Every structure is written in structure tokens, then in C-alpha cells.
């Protein structure tokens, strides 16, 4: 089946079995290795992408349903100012999640800050419940997100003025 969609800002076309999982399509056909294939049943969050601006799990999306949709993976997201807010926040908090979970965490934090620019601790924890990993302690993550929220707020303020 030939499918056309927008991937990281570019229109792409691919010939694929329609039921192929999106994660396999992105990793095998487009060589986008930032998203990881973890549990493949929607529990670990390592395969998180932005589908039409909303976080989604690419392990549970069949390829045929993404026709004419917009997909952003961590590779596309890292070119944005929004990514830099989170990167700076993580640096300030010395927060270094592992290579397996970091892309999912960053996209979920982005989604959280877009919806709620000043989340409290329980809102942060709730937003990250789908990104299970033992690589980093929760206090460092909380600090990273707090700093990221401040960075984003300051950037938006700068952009306005």
C-alpha cells in the first residue's frame, strides 16, 4: 500500500504492508532510530511520537491509518525551540535520562508544557506515567521539567517583546 504523510515537516511517500506498525515503518524504512521499540504493547512509552501535535504510541498505530497525517519524531522535534527549552532545563537539573526513554520523555514533557505551562509536581508525574524507566531518579526529572517550564516561559516572553 502506498502511503503519503508528513514526516518531520517533509512530505514522504512509502510503499508498505498496511498493517505494519508505525514504529517499524519509521525505524526500518526511514531509519529514525530516536524512537525505540520497547514493550510494543503501549506500556513503556519509548516509541512516543507527535501525531498531529498530540503524543501517540507508534507501536499501536497501523501504517495505513497515518495517510495524510503529520508525524514528528524526536529527530524532527530536536530542531525546534521547544526542544531547546527542555534540553536546557535538563542540563540545569543535571538530568540525564537514558537513550531508551529520553525521546518519549521529551515529547511527553513538551505536550504537558503546551497544555499546562506551569505544572505542579503531581501533574508532572502524572504526565510521565507512561514513560517507565529506572535510569534516572524522579527528583532530578521533576527539577528538569521545572527548569524547562521556566525556560519556555522566558522564551515566550522574549518572543513577545
Amino acid at each position, binding site marked *: *500500500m502506498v502511503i503519503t504523510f508528513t514526516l518531520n515537516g517533509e512530505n514522504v511517500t512509502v510503499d508498505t*504492508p*498496511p*498493517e505494519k*506498525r508505525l514504529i517499524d515503518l519509521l525505524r526500518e524504512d526511514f531509519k529514525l532510530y530516536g524512537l525505540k521499540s520497547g514493550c*510494543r*504493547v*503501549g*506500556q513503556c*512509552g519509548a516509541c*512516543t511520537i507527535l501525531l498531529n501535535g*498530540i*503524543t*501517540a*504510541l507508534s*507501536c*499501536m*498505530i*497501523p501504517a*495505513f*491509518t497515518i*495517510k495524510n497525517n503529520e508525524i514528528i519524531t524526536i529527530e524532527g522535534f530536536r530542531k525546534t525551540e521547544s526542544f531547546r527549552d527542555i534540553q536546557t532545563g535538563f542540563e540545569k537539573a543535571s538530568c540525564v535520562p537514558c537513550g531508551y526513554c529520553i525521546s518519549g520523555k521529551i515529547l*511527553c514533557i513538551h*505536550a504537558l508544557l503546551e497544555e499546562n505551562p506551569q505544572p505542579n509536581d503531581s501533574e508532572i508525574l*502524572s*504526565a510521565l*506515567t*507512561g514513560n517507565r524507566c529506572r535510569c534516572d531518579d524522579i527528583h532530578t526529572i521533576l527539577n528538569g521539567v521545572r527548569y524547562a517550564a521556566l525556560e519556555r516561559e522566558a522564551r515566550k516572553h522574549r518572543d513577545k517583546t
Partner: protein
Amino acid sequence: MESDMPPSKEKHGNIEIKHKSAHTYIPGSVNELLQVYADHPGAVISAGGTYLYSTVFSESLPSPLNIISLKNIDELRRITRSERYLEVGACAPINSIVSISKKLLPGPLYDVLFGIATPTVRNMATLGGNLCVPGKRMDSASILSLLEARLEIRSSTKSSWIPISRFFNDDGSVSLGKGEVLTRIRIPLDDWNIGIYKKYGFYPFQGMEYLSFCGIAKEQRNILSDFRVAFSAGGPKILRNREIEAQLNGRRLPLMEKGRLPSLAAFQEILEETPYISPFLSARAFRLFRSFLTMLGQE
């Protein structure tokens, strides 16, 4: 409507390999959906895909396979509210219902929906999908049963509204006939002034322990005017006992210890008769029921 028909066989040298690719359909309206489902009554319907891809399709696809995706049907994602009802399209993502203010959702419905899986899964999972999981009564089933929601079932030839209690069969299947689809869920917006919801476990698959317990009640001038309790332990049925509810309705609040005992004993009996609940979860359910009785009249 878009559809794709891949070749059913392909040749590699002298060996012919059966192709496992699916035939896929993406209808753009309910009418198109009903038509294509009437033509392919054995097709698998994919709403959010979270159940299908985490369980049914987790290893390999059955073949031959027709999949109908509901993602392009805006009518099925619509949420409307009147004075008396909240009407939710069967394919409305859980998060779009949660985004309605907590105060506007009846009883502990918000807590139930907010407790489903993770935020990213809730972006994809749908209320209709949660109700239609075969053999397992998931999170939303108990609360919608207590709220006495009604479901719209449509096929290419007819349309009807049924009470949710008639939707679930005793063997765990849902009562959808050939070519029938769940299209809308109508939830009455009664004012329940007492509610409880607790969940243990993530979801009832892969041998995980699971309990989803909820209770709602109305109190008027210290009288318990309407009391309802139901729970699901990941089995095929929602466990709700109307005799216990009737015993308690009309009682003066707060309930004294002596007044609670017959209901507690009856509830214990139900737990003992339920085959698929572990001793741990059985004890949990009992304690939750007891806490709910204690809560009454104290709020």
C-alpha cells in the same frame, strides 16, 4: 472511503507464499462504515487500536484479515452536552472526555477515565473501544453501568438505543449482531453527591491482578435515596447486586455498625461466588465496600 487490497499471494522462485497483508478500509462517515461492515461482517474494527495492538495483534496477524479503521469518522468523535445527558461518540478519545471539566462529569466518571492507562494511551484509546473489549469488563464499564448509560447501536438497516446492562452478555461478549456497531454513549447527568472509585492493577491482561471498584450515592436530608455499587475484577461480568442496593436505599445516615452488617455479609457472599477474583483482590473489594458504607453520611 479509502480501501486497499494487497495481493493475496506472491511468488518467490517456485515457492508461492500466502500474503499476510490485511485488507484495510477507512470510511469517512458512519453510513460508509455501516455499508462496508455489512459487506465484510467478519472484519476487525479498529477504533483507537490500543487493545487490538497490545493484545490481539501483539504477535502476529490472523489471515485473511479485513480491518476497518474508524479514525476518519468525525461523527463518532463528537461530544455534546444537554441539561440531562452527556452524549459521547463511541470513538471520542478518553482524553477529550477528561478535558471536559471534572465538575461537569457525573459521579466519579472523571476519576475513572483519568485512571485509564497513561496520558499518551488516553490520547488514542476511545470510550467505545473500552466498552467493547471482548471477555473483559474494563474501567469504564462499571461506572457507566451505575450511571445507567444508554448505547446507540447501528447497522446498515436499523438503529436502536439499549441500556448498557443489555450490552454485556454473561459469557463476556458484547451484544453486537452481524454488521452492528456501537456509535454513541448517552450518560445521564444526575447529581450524585457521594462517589468512590478505586483501581488496583494496570489492566486485566497478561495475568495481571485488576480491580475497578466504584460506588455512587445520593443523600437527601440524611436519607440515602439512591445507592449503587459495582466492580469489575477483569472478568467477563460487572458485579452489581441490586438486592444490596435495595437494602440500603431509604436508610437514615450515617449508617450504624449494626445497620451495615447485613449488607457487608451479602457483599462477602458475592465475592465468594465470584470465581475469577483472587483472595487479595476479594479482600480489597470488601474493604472498599466497607469504606464506602462508612463514608455515607460523613461528607
